[in-house]
């Protein structure tokens, strides 16, 4: 924690009504960017801080991360409240507004700097690294909220607030602070039996000296963490009252439907607006550089009128691009399989390919904007409100300080709503500018969403491995396209000669971050290949991996746990099989065993998935478990069914009919175990995605002898041998 105290400033003050507020601001990384919390800020009623305690004894915690169903806001509130020794039923959480003071990038950077995996040559993990590059943003991504903001920010704020409350009580009672203790939103002095609520102490606590290095709890004294309080956002999600960006409404609001150049980079060449102009409810046809929008008094009318138009777009010179041409280019740059040492007793080679993927969040992209002169208001759902505000400002040519942005609960994120992918905000504010000063809600259809995503990249990877005379691997080499980094290509195994080289083959398809980022491709490549090496060696795939993990106790423990949970090795009926895989990403190690059944006709059913996860420690057990389950199902849908293909430069798929998802009937039973370790907290939103596809492919091989080297699996015929 010394690191933290050098890098940050903690300030406090009172708020109107006699409350107490406390915040942490990172001026070291961004001089002048963050308004320090001060009595002056409080006097102006400016809430630029994380904790407020009101006289009625409620603690409100402002969370600088968005909620997209991952339980982050509840988990961060728990981490703060635990250090504060607040009574959980008296704790409220609220998303911090899109103000610079709530930028969280510097905290994540602190986490990134702190967490350097012991494995040499790999650098910090990708999530923290990537998010740290976005320093100054209010981003939720890279599985960083709990391990970054929570560990290095919210805990410290909670502990500091407690020390101040205790100091205030001690001063009132004329006793030593060391004789007082906080428990369940009260400060008590055991010797005299006196006690006061946090609410009663809040006003005087605010004038106490702010500790810069408050003592943090030993994990053994956690009272709220490691339990499973119900998520704070769930009641509003069962009665329809939760408000998403698509639900926002404001007086005089108009609706826009939009058609964007089908080939990325293309421009609107011409459009005859007459057919739409004459239709009921239509206010205007708005022509943008790369799109045409119809603005009307209802979305359905806007959409119907848009369908009557026949806009022409240019193809930016990419009209001949197809999935085939992209994979042909991959093939060409990869060339022959990588070389392996000449003294190998046995050489194993394999080629794997994965497709482009869309995020397909259940809530499509939606943004409402009102532009009035050099000012704008924006209502949307993003994983980084501060950067979205900048996007809007840039599109309008105005100062970011003149843009007020309200963020809503997200109907799924998975990386689609991250910095640099705010095209929906950019387009919506330009549509609204054309209708100024009327507010306009631009709703993307599912077709817009599938066809104008920032896709998970397609990739091709060629592997060669060498076994010695005893069947132990001595080399594993790969050449891959589609991007990679130290974390994603890393294999934990004790193989003397491991190499992975990227070969670049550019294409014009727009790429973004998809849940677990590069690990989603490389997890499949490397954990399929190690399985192929195990079979080539005539060894059990679990035992083969285990024998290579002697130097990696965390990996070994997770692998063994998953295998034990699954009953690995116990006989299965004909046509059934188990597959195993293990990946580290975002500071978390996830081992998964998938159990499948394949009918004589080749119909695949995924029966069970067993996950053993080492993310250090767990904050909210139940919502952490939900992230494991959700990550597995998300990855399963992609592995079984999902594929974005390109023809004539365009995305072929349009909606859930041709970009299908699994349903409840296809969902396996998921059994989760957390393997506690003394490692720093790891992320949880993403790390259970990468091992699923290879564990599934490995299970298919075990069940029927068909080796899946291409995703989605539906492209491989599965006939039982």
């Amino acid at each position, binding site marked *: 924690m010394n690191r933290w105290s050098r890098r940050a400033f903690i300030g406090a003050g009172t708020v109107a009504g006699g409350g107490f507020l406390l915040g942490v601001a990172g001026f070291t990384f961004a001089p002048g960017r963050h308004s320090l919390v001060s009595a002056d800020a409080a006097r102006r009623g400016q809430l630029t801080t994380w904790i407020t305690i009101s006289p009625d004894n409620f603690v409100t915690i402002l969370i600088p991360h968005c909620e997209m*169903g*991952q339980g982050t806001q509840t988990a961060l509130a728990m981490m703060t409240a635990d250090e504060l020794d607040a009574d959980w039923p008296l704790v409220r959480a609220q998303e911090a507004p899109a103000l610079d003071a709530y930028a969280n990038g510097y905290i994540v950077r602190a986490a990134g700097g702190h967490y350097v995996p012991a494995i040499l040559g790999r650098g910090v993990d990708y999530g923290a690294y990537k998010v740290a590059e976005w320093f100054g943003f209010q981003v939720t991504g890279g599985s960083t909220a709990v391990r970054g903001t929570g560990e290095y920010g919210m805990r410290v704020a909670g502990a500091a607030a407690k020390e101040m409350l205790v100091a205030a009580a001690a001063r009132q009672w004329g006793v030593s602070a060391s004789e007082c203790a906080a428990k369940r939103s009260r400060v008590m002095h055991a010797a005299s039996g006196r006690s006061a609520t946090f609410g009663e102490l809040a006003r005087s606590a605010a004038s106490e000296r702010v500790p810069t290095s408050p003592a943090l709890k030993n994990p053994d004294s956690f009272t709220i963490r490691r339990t499973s309080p119900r998520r704070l956002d769930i009641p509003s999600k069962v*009665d*329809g*009252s939760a408000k998403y960006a698509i639900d926002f409404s404001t007086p005089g609001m108009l609706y826009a439907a939009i058609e964007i150049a089908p080939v990325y980079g293309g421009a609107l060449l011409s459009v005859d607006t007459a057919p739409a102009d004459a239709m009921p409810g239509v206010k205007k046809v708005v022509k943008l550089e790369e799109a045409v929008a119809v603005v009307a008094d*209802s*979305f359905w009318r806007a959409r119907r009128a848009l369908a009557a138009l026949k806009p022409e777009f240019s193809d930016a010179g990419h009209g001949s691009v197809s999935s085939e041409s992209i994979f042909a280019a991959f093939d060409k740059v990869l060339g022959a399989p990588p070389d392996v040492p000449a003294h190998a007793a046995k050489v194993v080679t394999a080629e794997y390919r994965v497709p482009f993927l869309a995020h397909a969040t*259940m809530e*499509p992209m939606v943004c409402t904007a009102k532009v009035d002169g050099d000012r704008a208001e924006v209502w949307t759902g993003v994983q980084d409100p501060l950067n979205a505000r900048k996007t809007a400002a840039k599109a309008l040519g105005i100062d970011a300080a003149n843009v007020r942005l309200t963020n809503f609960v997200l109907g799924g994120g998975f990386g689609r709503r991250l910095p640099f992918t705010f095209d929906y905000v950019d387009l919506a504010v330009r549509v609204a500018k054309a209708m100024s000063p009327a507010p306009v809600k631009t709703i993307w259809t599912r077709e817009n969403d599938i066809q104008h995503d920032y896709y998970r990249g397609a990739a091709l990877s060629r592997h060669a491995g060498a076994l010695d005379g005893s069947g132990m691997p001595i080399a594993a080499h790969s050449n891959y396209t589609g991007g990679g980094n130290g974390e994603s290509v890393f294999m934990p195994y004790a193989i003397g000669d491991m190499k992975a080289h990227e070969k670049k083959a550019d294409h014009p398809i727009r790429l973004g971050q998809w849940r677990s980022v590069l690990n989603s491709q490389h997890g499949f490549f490397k954990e399929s290949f190690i399985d192929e090496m195990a079979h080539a060696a005539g060894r059990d795939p679990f035992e083969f991996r285990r024998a290579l993990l002697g130097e990696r106790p965390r990996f070994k423990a997770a692998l063994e746990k998953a295998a034990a949970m699954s009953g690995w090795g116990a006989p299965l009926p004909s046509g059934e099989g188990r597959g195993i895989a293990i990946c580290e990403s975002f500071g978390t190690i996830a081992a998964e065993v998938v159990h499948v059944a394949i009918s004589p006709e080749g119909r695949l059913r995924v029966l069970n998935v067993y996950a053993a996860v080492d993310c250090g420690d767990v904050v909210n057990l139940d919502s952490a478990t939900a992230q494991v389950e959700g990550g597995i199902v998300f990855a399963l849908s992609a592995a079984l069914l999902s594929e974005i293909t390109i023809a004539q430069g365009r995305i072929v798929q349009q909606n859930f009919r041709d970009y299908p998802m699994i349903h409840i*009937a296809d969902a396996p039973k998921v059994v989760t175990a957390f393997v506690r370790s003394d490692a720093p907290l790891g992320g949880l939103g993403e790390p259970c995605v990468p091992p699923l596809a290879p564990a599934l492919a490995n299970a298919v091989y075990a069940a029927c002898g068909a080796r899946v080297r291409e995703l989605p699996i539906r492209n491989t015929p599965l006939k039982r041998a």
Partner: protein
Amino acid sequence: MATTITVNGAEHTLDLEPDMPLLWVLREALGLTGTKYGCGISACGACTVHLNGRAVHSCTLPLSAAAGQHVTTIEGLARAGSLHRVQQAWIAHQVPQCGYCQSGVIMAVAGLLAQRPAPTDDEIDAQLSNVCRCGTFVRMRAAIHDAASAAEGAAS
């Protein structure tokens, strides 16, 4: 042309195109935003509401088809301030993540339980085709069985 529909017990007369999907009538004309747009082609179930007690996809149901009928949305599922047993089970099992699909799922499950008070796993699989990108299916199934047994308990 005016159309009269009853939504959550309240009658509304609306001067809208008869072919406007019920989804947009509910969301934009009546402000009932709990019912969600997901695909517009009856492929994901986020827009599920009850038409005379039966689950239907409102994104492809024209307003004219609901004329004179009773529509129930997620906002009207709770009765007398008490959550429907499916909603209660959803909280007990902490089913929702992003929550966007859940109004539709809850309406679909409530509709299923009205037809089949104690559905088997196979019946659930056959009847429930909602898409949930967060992957909450594992919990949904447990919650459905809980809600079904709560109903049985109430009936006996």
